[in-house]
């Protein structure tokens, strides 16, 4: 029997994967060709989606991007035996985009059927959890500390230190909360893990529970991800039925329960304390810190709150050891980062690489330059609160410290590319607008400052006293940076001021800094 793969990932479905799968089933029946259709995860090569693969003795052979109308032609070309066709991309594993990655967190994504626990086990699944069950909580936390894993949500706080605090805090109940409120534009790695390899997140959360002594986990998922909601709930039900979750995790006698909760369209709930408020059923307004969530988190009890990617990376660290993971990367940025190439790029997708490669490699070698064919003008790295980078900065190494040194941030690893038609004054205005829209309202610099920011950018662009408005804008940014309670108000000045610094001509300003860039 021939096995054919068509992804079930929502991005693949968004460009016709379901229609392609139906056409393949229909055409195979018509031609009386017996075939087994697997809805796998997406490899994350989205310009090739829908990407159809067929298993051959030499390995899986890829065809893409396939439309339903291409399907009869594929059968005519005997694609089910790996036949030649204009859409044939060769062996999947040999496609340069994939071959040149270091996939640790995403090792199974694309390869397996996301909802098959057998497939998961057959590809190293549950080995980390098995190993964790033989270790003391202290040794578990130490392994995570030694791996050098830092929070992949964006703040890059050492995961081991967070876990240590929760472990050391005595309480009758502790919680593991997964932040799956992936709201940054240009990011989709959390979504892919949840849709394309959900068991790795479940396993990571169970390990976290064992490490700190928490028996209840929550995944706080944004409503904008209905496919992830469906997949996670199915995977959790399967995990309960197989004894991976519940009263006795893998027969150990140790309990871990897990539930998915749905958000309701508030970007601020990606901030950890807002998320906790929201989980408690309140308005998602941020809390003052301290107390830290690790000491007083969900329902006032010690809580590990980690991003999807951080938790989904825990199983591979346990399965292969802290050293194995730590040996990837550079400086204080250890391991790998799943980067997301988005916006105006010819080859958008998911690229997991060890820290240390250059941004330009992502943009041109992986990304293939702009989708429009026009020159790339800027890249926003790290979501809506990240800096806009100038071409002269494209050689920056992908590393937390290197980005911080140029006044930018890696954040959650999302990268949005713009061609030369972008108006940077408009993007700066949008940054304030977005902040105004999403501010939780708790602190004044963010709540009021964002609206004043929109107004002052408008005035700056209109004819008038530019010197005065520019001084006002910088003063406002200064207040927001230093006076806001959380990253939303505190970082909104980053896209604004980077746009102003590198692209002042879009604001109708002369800027001497401009000339030094082109040098």
């Amino acid at each position, binding site marked *: 029997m021939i096995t054919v793969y068509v992804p079930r990932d*929502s*991005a693949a*479905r*968004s*460009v016709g994967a379901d229609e392609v799968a139906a056409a393949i089933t229909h055409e195979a029946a018509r031609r009386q060709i017996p075939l087994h259709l697997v809805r796998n995860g997406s490899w994350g090569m*989205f*310009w090739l*989606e829908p990407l159809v693969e067929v298993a051959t003795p030499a390995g899986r052979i890829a065809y893409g991007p396939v439309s339903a109308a291409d399907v009869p032609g594929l059968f005519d070309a005997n694609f089910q035996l790996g036949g030649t066709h204009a859409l044939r991309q060769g062996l999947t594993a040999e496609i340069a985009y994939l071959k040149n990655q270091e996939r640790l967190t995403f090792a199974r994504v694309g390869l397996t059927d996301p909802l098959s626990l057998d497939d998961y086990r057959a590809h190293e699944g549950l080995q980390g959890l098995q190993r964790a069950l033989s270790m003391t909580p202290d040794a578990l936390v130490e392994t995570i500390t030694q791996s050098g894993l830092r929070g992949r949500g964006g703040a890059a706080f050492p995961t081991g230190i967070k876990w240590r605090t929760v472990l050391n805090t005595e309480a009758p109940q502790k919680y593991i909360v997964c932040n799956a409120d*992936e*709201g*940054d*534009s*240009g*990011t*989709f790695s*959390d*979504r892919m893990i949840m849709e394309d390899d959900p068991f790795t997140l479940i396993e990571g959360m169970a390990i976290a529970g064992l490490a700190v002594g928490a028996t209840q986990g929550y995944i706080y998922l944004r*409503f*904008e*991800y*209905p*496919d992830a909601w469906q997949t996670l709930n199915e995977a959790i039900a399967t995990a309960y039925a197989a004894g991976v979750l519940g009263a006795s995790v893998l027969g150990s006698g140790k309990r871990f329960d897990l539930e998915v*909760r*749905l*958000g*309701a*369209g*508030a*970007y601020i709930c990606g901030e950890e304390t807002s998320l906790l408020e*929201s*989980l*408690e*059923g*309140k*308005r*998602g307004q941020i809390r003052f810190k301290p107390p830290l969530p690790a000491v007083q988190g969900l*329902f006032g009890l010690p809580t590990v709150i980690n991003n999807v990617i951080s938790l989904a990376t825990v199983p591979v660290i346990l399965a292969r050891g802290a050293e194995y993971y730590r040996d990837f990367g550079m400086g204080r940025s250890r391991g790998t980062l799943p980067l*997301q*190439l*988005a*916006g*105006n*790029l010819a080859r*958008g*997708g*998911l690229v997991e690489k060890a820290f240390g490669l250059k941004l330009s490699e992502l943009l041109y070698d992986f990304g293939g330059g702009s*989708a429009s064919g026009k020159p790339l003008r800027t890249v926003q790295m790290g979501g*809506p609160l990240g800096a806009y980078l100038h071409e002269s900065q494209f050689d920056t190494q992908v590393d937390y410290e290197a980005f911080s040194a140029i006044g930018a941030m890696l954040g959650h690893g*999302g990268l*949005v*590319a*713009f*061609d030369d038609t*972008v108006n940077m004054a408009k*993007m700066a205005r*949008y940054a304030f607008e*977005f902040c105004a*829209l*999403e501010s*939780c309202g708790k602190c004044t610099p963010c709540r009021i400052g964002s609206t004043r920011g929109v107004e002052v950018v408008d005035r700056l662009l209109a004819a008038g006293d530019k010197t005065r408005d520019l001084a006002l804008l910088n003063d406002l940014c200064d207040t927001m940076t230093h006076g806001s309670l959380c990253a939303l108000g505190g970082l909104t000045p980053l896209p604004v001021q980077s746009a102003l610094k590198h692209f002042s001509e879009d604001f109708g300003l002369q800027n001497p800094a401009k000339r030094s860039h082109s040098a």
Partner: protein
Amino acid sequence: MSAASAHWPAWHEASALELLAPLLSLPGPLLPALHAVQAHFGFIPPEATALLATTFNLSRAEVHGVITFYDFFRREPPGQRIVRLCQAEACQAMGSEALAAHAKAQLGVDFHQTTADGRVSLEPVYCLGNCACAPAMMIDERLHGRVSAARFDALVLERESA
């Protein structure tokens, strides 16, 4: 009943209580409760505020505060289908503003409005996680990528694309 609410059941307290019953033992039940109410009635009817307050021992002000904090919870019935156009940066880089202008002109509504025939509610959304296939759109719970004006017409207006 207005055209817009014709697709959803009218408020019925007993049905609402049935929806809430399995949530009574949950810690922090208000968001799951609001999701359940909206999934059934299409929006959060005004009568629901008092019922939720009584059920979960909260003040009506607290419940109202939560409903109004979150964009997803509607206080008006939606159209037959909810079309969400992504307006975030990655989609902007691929022409989402032009697509939004096209959508508004074709439907004759602005964002946060419902067409006069009650068929479509148009909403902006800030990231659907489909940033490598921009511009992105979601119709109810179904995601669409690489949405051109012609594809919008075919999917939303059910008009044959050229």
